[in-house]
Structure formats: C-alpha cells, structure tokens
C-alpha cells in the first residue's frame, strides 16, 4: 500500500504524536502548519464578512443590514483579512516552513521565539474575535481618530489590542528571519546564491521590524486616549488627528509590501522552475526586493492627499511614490524575460504565477493613478481605490500564496494534489476575481463611494456583476480547501523532487525529516542552475 511506504521513514510529521507535540513544538515546519491552520480560519472568517457585504450591495437599498451593522462588517472584514491573514500569510506559513530549508539550516535561529510568535498571533486573533462576537467594531480597519477615540461606542479597545499583540508576532517573526538569514546559512550559501524567495522574505522582515513598532505605539496612544483620557490626537485640546494618520500609514503603507514582497518571492521561484530557466537578472530582482522595502517607507503620505496635510508634503509624497514603480517594474519585466524561450509547463502553480503577474500589473499601474495628486482627489474613498488594493492584495498576494501552497504542498505533506481540480480552481479563481473587482474600477470612476451600503440605482448593474464574481471566487477558494484535505489521505505519493527544482528544500525527502536534512548540505552552485537536476516538470 502507498501509506505503508510513506510511514516506514521517520519524518517531521510522525516523529512524535499528540496535541502536546504540536502545541509545544519548536520545529519550524510544524509551526508553519499551525500558522497555516490559523490564517485559513481567519481567511474564511474575513471571507464570511465579505460575503455579507457583497450580498447587501446587490440592491441599492439598505435592506439586509443596518448602516451600523454594515460599518462593522467592512471593518471586521478589513481587520481579519489584513492583520490576521495577509500579513502572516506567506512569511509565517511558507516562509516559516521553507526559509530555513532553503538556506540549509536545521531550524530558525530562535525556535522558541518562533513558537511564541504563533501564540501571540492566536492571542491577538482571539482578542479581535472576542470584539467581533461581543458586538463588533465600526471604525474601519484604519481606526482614524477622533472617531475611534471619542465617538465610536463599539469594541475599539479589544480589537486594537488584538492587533497590537499580533504586531508583536509579526515583529518577532521578522527578527527571527533576519538573524536566521545572517547567521544560519549552510556552508557555501553566499548571499547571491540565496533563492529569491529568501531575498524577498528577508526584505519583508526588515519592513516588519522597522514599521510594526510605530503601529504599536500608535495603538498604545489610541488606547491611552480612550481609556486614560490623554489627549495626543484630540483636536479639542490642540491635538492633531492627521498626526495619527501619519503614524498609522508609516506602518500601514509599508505593510502593503509586507503582504506583496513575499508574494513576489514565490513568483520568482515558480516562474523559474516551470520555465526551466534561471531567473533573468537575478541580482536586479534581489536588489529590487530591498529597494521596495526601503522606498516603501518614503511614500506613506499619499494616503493623506485629501486630509489637511500640507500641499507641499503632498507633492513630495506623490513624487516619491512613483519611485516604487521602478523596482516593481523591474520584477515584472524580469519574470517576463525569464519566460522568454523557456521550456514552459502549465502546472497549477504556474497558472497562479501567470495570474499574479497580470493582476499585480493592473493593481500596480492603477497605483500610479492614485499616486497622482490631481487624479487621487477625484477617486479618493471610491471603489476605484477599493479595486486597486484588492488587485494587489487578492490578485497579487492570495494568488501567489495559493501558487506557493500548491508548489510546496508535495514537500510539506509528501502528497500530490489532484492536478485537474487544481487547474480548474485556479481558472475559477482568476475569472471570479476579475468579475468581482474589475467592475469596481468602473464603479469608483463613476463616483461610487466606499463604505456606503445605500447607493443610487444606476450603479446596481455593476454591483450585481461584482457580487456574482464574488460568488464564483468563493467557490474557487473552497475547492482547494477540499482537495488539499482530500490529498492528505488519498493523494498520489510525491517524490523528493516532483518538479525537478533546484532549491535545497527539494534535496531532502518529502516530507522532510525533523531536522530537515539527513546531512548538512554544502552549496556549490548558484540558485536556479537546472544543469544540476535532470528532466522536465511532469504535469499530471
């Protein structure tokens, strides 16, 4: 029997059994799976809120939920998705699992801190979940003052503290990754032999470490204002709500890159392995990750164009925002150049990679629209902005996350997923996504404001299209959930290297042994050197 063959060898999944062996594990691979379960829960929770939002928007009248409930719905959708799914998504699951393996290490530098950071995410998630169940929160995920400090009578404190605690999780993960990449690389694994996923995850960690503390202190000051009556953002005492926005976006704009940079790293891996070519311009792609991490900190003021921010600051931030396009474009061009004359196979992860490249490009280019001062005044707080950032976050990050999950699933579980169903769901997700969010560009351009559940009847057709797309998208997300679970028991047994890929993670058994490698690897060649592995990718 197939199962018998797998169970003969000891690996990280059967090295020990029982709940305790998971809840007290220091193995980065098991912690990665704990994260996977946690963020999947929050993804479907956020998805449930999104469903209610889309159903409400089917009709121009506010007939399903009240205005207050609607405010809570979009807030909780944002909180669940941004802080408890998108930010931990790729770094904490795929990064946790594969970053040590890709550099040839036995584990992260601080395994116990790694476990602690999972507990912190869970604790933060429970706090926010408690707030949602107890009555919800209605400030929007941005918690703008003075509404959040002086007026809202919903569960602001519990939600904000949940995000604060989850922020510590993010900081500790980033810290752990940085130290690991600096200090734990296998012999011969020089910086320019690192897989590009490691480069982009490293750049992400730098953002997490430098940005998240500013969000933490902002939340603390918000907390002090609500609970202890300090007045730092209170305009009646000379405080400035725009200062809150500066501090908030100093983190939250770079946070977009926390979400999308690791996604770019996944795409670099996928594009290379499924076209059997090294990534074109490796050094440029690697440095582009670092450049995005740095430039991402210089542009936050473009979220404040219509606040009372000075026009001169607006000019500076608008100008700087355009620079982010350069490294982003370098990446897109280099992925495309990698495809050129490649031996391309259309395996499921590659379909997601194609989806990413197209959708990220649309999301990125519309980002240039809204970075332009004049145009932004026209579309601020409309569905144009909503569509723009969903193209980056859903069309970019989630596409890459699913692509990466499919790509590494055989390594994580030792089982193949069913290729036919996987291709079908990739297609369904791509179509559903575009049907959901493309009409929102049009809606926004026509003037449909975000965060309203009652709208003029002439917008209804586009809203119905968007809701129809969301239904398709939901089906697309449920299918992988089902076949991934199915594959754990019934999937074809995967070999050590089903894709004939070059990374160190593929040079060990599937699933990997508890300490990753039976023998510590020694690296002697560049990343993506396909002359070292024979054969083509087999597509089932």
């Amino acid at each position, binding site marked *: 029997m197939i199962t018998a063959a797998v169970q003969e060898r000891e690996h990280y999944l059967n090295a020990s059994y029982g709940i305790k062996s998971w809840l007290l594990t220091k193995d980065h691979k098991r912690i990665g799976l704990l994260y996977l379960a946690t963020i999947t829960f929050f993804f479907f929770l956020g998805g449930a809120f999104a469903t209610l939002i889309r159903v409400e928007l089917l009709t121009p009248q506010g007939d399903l939920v009240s205005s207050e409930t609607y405010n809570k719905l979009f807030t909780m959708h944002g909180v669940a998705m941004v802080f408890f799914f998108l930010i931990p998504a790729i770094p904490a699951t795929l990064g946790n699992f594969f970053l040590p393996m890709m550099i040839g290490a036995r584990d992260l530098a601080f395994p116990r801190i790694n476990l602690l950071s999972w507990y912190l995410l869970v604790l933060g998630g429970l706090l926010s979940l408690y707030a949602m169940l107890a009555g919800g929160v209605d400030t929007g995920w941005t918690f703008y003052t003075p509404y959040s400090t002086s007026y809202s009578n919903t569960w602001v404190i519990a939600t904000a503290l949940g995000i604060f605690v989850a922020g510590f999780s993010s900081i500790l993960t980033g810290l752990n990754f940085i130290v690991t990449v600096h200090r734990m690389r296998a012999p011969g694994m020089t910086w320019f032999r690192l897989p590009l996923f490691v480069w982009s995850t490293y750049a992400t960690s730098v953002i997490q470490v430098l940005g998240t503390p500013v969000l933490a202190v902002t939340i603390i000051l918000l907390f002090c204002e609500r609970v202890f009556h300090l007045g730092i953002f209170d305009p009646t005492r000379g405080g400035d709500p725009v200062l809150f926005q500066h501090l908030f976006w100093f983190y939250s704009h770079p946070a977009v890159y926390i979400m999308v940079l690791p996604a770019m790293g996944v795409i670099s891996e996928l594009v290379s392995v499924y076209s059997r070519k090294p990534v074109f311009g490796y050094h440029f792609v690697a440095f582009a990750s670092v450049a995005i991490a740095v430039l991402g*900190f210089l542009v936050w003021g473009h979220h404040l164009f219509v606040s009372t921010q*000075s026009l001169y600051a607006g000019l500076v931030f608008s100008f700087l925002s355009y620079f982010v396009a350069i490294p982003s474009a370098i990446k897109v061009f280099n992925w495309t150049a990698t495809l050129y004359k490649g031996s391309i196979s259309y395996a499921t992860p590659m379909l997601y990679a194609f989806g990413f490249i197209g959708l990220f490009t649309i999301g990125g280019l519309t980002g240039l629209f809204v970075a332009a001062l004049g145009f932004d005044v026209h579309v601020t707080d409309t569905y144009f902005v909503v569509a723009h950032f969903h193209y980056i976050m859903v069309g970019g990050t989630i596409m890459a996350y699913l692509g990466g999950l499919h790509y590494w699933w055989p390594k994580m579980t030792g089982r193949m997923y069913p290729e036919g169903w996987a291709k079908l769901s990739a297609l369904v997700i791509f179509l559903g996504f575009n049907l959901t969010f493309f009409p929102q560009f049009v809606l926004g351009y026509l003037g449909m404001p975000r965060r309203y559940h009652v709208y003029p009847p002439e917008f209804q057709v586009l809203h119905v299209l968007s809701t129809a797309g969301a239904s398709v998208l939901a089906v697309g997300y449920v299918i992988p959930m089902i076949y991934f679970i199915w594959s754990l028991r019934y999937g074809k047994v995967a070999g050590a290297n089903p894709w004939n890929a070059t990374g160190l993670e593929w040079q060990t058994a599937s699933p990997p042994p508890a300490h990753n490698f039976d023998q510590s690897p020694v690296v002697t060649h560049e990343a993506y050197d396909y002359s070292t592995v024979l054969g083509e990718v087999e597509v089932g």
Partner: protein
Amino acid sequence: MTEHIDRVRTYALVFAVLIALTVLTTAVAFVDLGPFSVVVALAIAVGKMLLVALFFMHIRHSTRLTRLVVLGGLLWLIILILLSLTDFATRTWVGVPGR
C-alpha cells in the same frame, strides 16, 4: 569573535563623564541661550547616548553588521521624523485655511 574585556577604569571614567554631562545640561537649562538651548540640550543628550552605546553597549568592539543595524534604526527614525515634518512644517505656507 574575540571577547574584549574593558578595564573597570574605562567604565568608571565614562560613568564620571556621564554624570558631569547630566549636571552640565541641567545647569545650562537655566541660562538664556535663545533658540540654542534646545540645540545644546540635544547635543549633550546625543553625546551621552554615544558614550553609553560605544562603551557600555560595546559598540566599539562590535561587528560591522551590528553597527549597520544600529545606523539603520537611527536612519529610519530620521525618515519618520523628517518626512512627517514635510507636512507639519509647511502647513501654513499656502495661506488657505485648512490647507
């Protein structure tokens, strides 16, 4: 990495300078230096920070990477403050209320 063990004398000297600087900055605060009182206070604080960081936190013996990390942190603090000030320092230039 070779371990550097500094002499107690070195630490005591640094400590004495730190105390002296504290007394100095307190005394100077009572003197009218106009706009320079902030400058002097901050210069003394930076000096004390350098002494603590270089000697007590052993930066003068530390690796290049550690120094890079510290400088990176300070640079990001400067980014946070300077770019925010592009707003707060230029608010009144346009001369339109609310702009």
